[in-house]
């Protein structure tokens, strides 16, 4: 069912290469006011892989996800300590390490580099075309032709082009939930990010749309580093390369998805992936 793109041989090779850490997390702690949501977490997120965060509700997985592109800035009282950085040498083109927690960091640039897709599809009340063109219009100077090309490319990448190509200027809110979510993915990749964060991207969708998005995620990892938060264990096992299991604000175990699901080292992980709790 899942077909990995073979058109781009470069990326096919990259997938076979050993892991190169793109996002380095070390002794990371996060709070909402006085409540500590994350405790001394260490984790490496490899480039061009899909990393899944799993765990029961309230375990802190979404908190960590939202710190990666500083979405928590807009939550009053949210603060964090520890190391959270983008490893410069893993970037294209290679650069210096970026400390994501640096208060002086240009978060606009950070978020252009690290896009996010939310749980509920949230297209703007504009046309399909304008939704995808929204980011590019903000961030780059393009000609009309370049923008058209970019919009089409993004929609194709997000596997929604065939369904919307005849109504690009129709309202985005007229699309089905699954189409809206793929539109949101198209919107996110249209500004050329390196990382895509996905916060339970399928939990509001029906099984068919979920499958379409999962295929898409698997496909996209040839060009993007993807971090996905999910409640759905099958989803994690189907579409991720790496899995990190969170429980009560701590990272219990992380590693290759296959190993986590077949030979977990910790009992808690074992119980969780076998559906004993959570």
């Amino acid at each position: 069912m899942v077909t990995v793109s073979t058109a781009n041989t470069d990326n096919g090779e990259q997938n076979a290469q050993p892991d190169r850490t793109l996002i380095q997390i070390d002794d990371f702690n996060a709070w909402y006011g006085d409540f500590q949501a994350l405790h001394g977490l260490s984790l490496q997120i490899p480039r061009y892989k899909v990393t899944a965060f799993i765990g029961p509700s309230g375990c802190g997985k979404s908190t960590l996800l939202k710190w990666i592109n500083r979405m928590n800035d807009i939550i009053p009282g949210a603060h964090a300590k520890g190391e959270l950085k983008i490893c410069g040498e893993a970037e294209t083109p290679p650069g210096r390490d970026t400390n994501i927690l640096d208060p002086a960091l240009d978060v606009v640039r950070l978020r252009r580099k690290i896009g996010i897709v939310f749980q509920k599809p949230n297209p703007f009340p504009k046309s399909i075309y304008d939704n995808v063109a929204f980011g590019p219009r903000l961030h780059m100077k393009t000609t009309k032709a370049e923008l058209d090309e970019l919009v089409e490319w993004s929609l194709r990448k997000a596997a929604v082009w065939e369904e919307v190509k005849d109504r690009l200027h129709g309202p985005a809110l007229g699309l089905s939930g699954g189409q809206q979510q793929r539109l949101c993915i198209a919107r996110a990749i249209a500004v050329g990010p390196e990382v895509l964060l996905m916060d339970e991207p399928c939990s509001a969708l029906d099984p068919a749309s979920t499958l379409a998005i999962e295929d898409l995620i698997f496909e996209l990892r040839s060009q993007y580093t993807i971090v996905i938060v999910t409640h759905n264990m099958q989803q994690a096992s189907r579409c991720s390369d790496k899995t990190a299991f969170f429980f009560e604000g701590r990272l219990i175990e992380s590693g290759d998805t296959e190993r986590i699901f077949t030979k977990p080292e910790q009992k808690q992980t074992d119980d969780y992936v076998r559906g004993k709790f959570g």
Partner: protein
Amino acid sequence: MALPKALQNRDFRSTRVGMISERIIVVLLGLCALITVLITIGIIYMLVTQSAGFFRSDFVSLRGFLTDKEWTALQSQDLAKAQFGILPLLSGTLRVTLIAMLIALPLGLITAIYLSEFASSKIRSWLKPTLEVIAGVPTVVLGYFAILVISPSLQWASGGAFSTFNATSAGIAVGILCLPMVCSLSEDAMRAVPRSLREGAYGLGCTPFETSVKVVVPAALSGIVSAFLLAFSRAIGETMVVALAAGTLPTLTADPTRQAQTMTGFIVEMIKSESEYGTVQYFSLYAVAVSLFLITFAMTLLGQIVRRRFQESYQ
């Protein structure tokens, strides 16, 4: 799929310019907000300092102002005999406002329930504009209407018990004036109630009327109450109708058939009279204005408290 040209170029706009202009914009927005605060402070400063001139005068005291039962600022030629008790003016304002609210609140709320829960889109499409027409009628026309239509009708119906200028006809006209405001704000509040709540009520076997009265109205209560309070403030502050129709005699009574000069009505008359700057009469203007301001301010505060309280219980 080849990368599109725009992404190959990676010709991103500098975010530095964006960050600087963002900062400038925030400062500008802050300045605009500051202006409204400064205007408010300016008005309060002026009201307080000018009314201080009133209370400093030998002819009045704060105690007398609050408790005396007569207001004869314009009636007595002799300053020494003039009475400055706010109660008659206050009673006039309250009578007119109360009558207005008796008309506007029930009628407005019922119309809003009908519009939001029962009316077909066709009925809505002409009922709403009709209400908006009322909102568009100049208050001076309504004042006229009160003297020339409502007041004679009342006199005819009561066998002459009403005086030509009376609190009731002014109150009815002010009520009509407030009606569209109560109606459209309450309707907005009810329409904002999520459909899931209505479905929940229908799912338990409620009739449409039970649903709207037992579920929708309580859920929209914060919005409805703030609509009421807003209408109340509007009625207290309404000037043209009462200046025309309520009469010019301040009376301390509960009798709605008699004349009832209101606080706003007095201010109009005072400004149009020929009192000189610096006289007690002149300064009394500000004392009345401060009282009026305090009442509407209290209403605004109350509205905020109510909104906060009810919103908490429904979210």
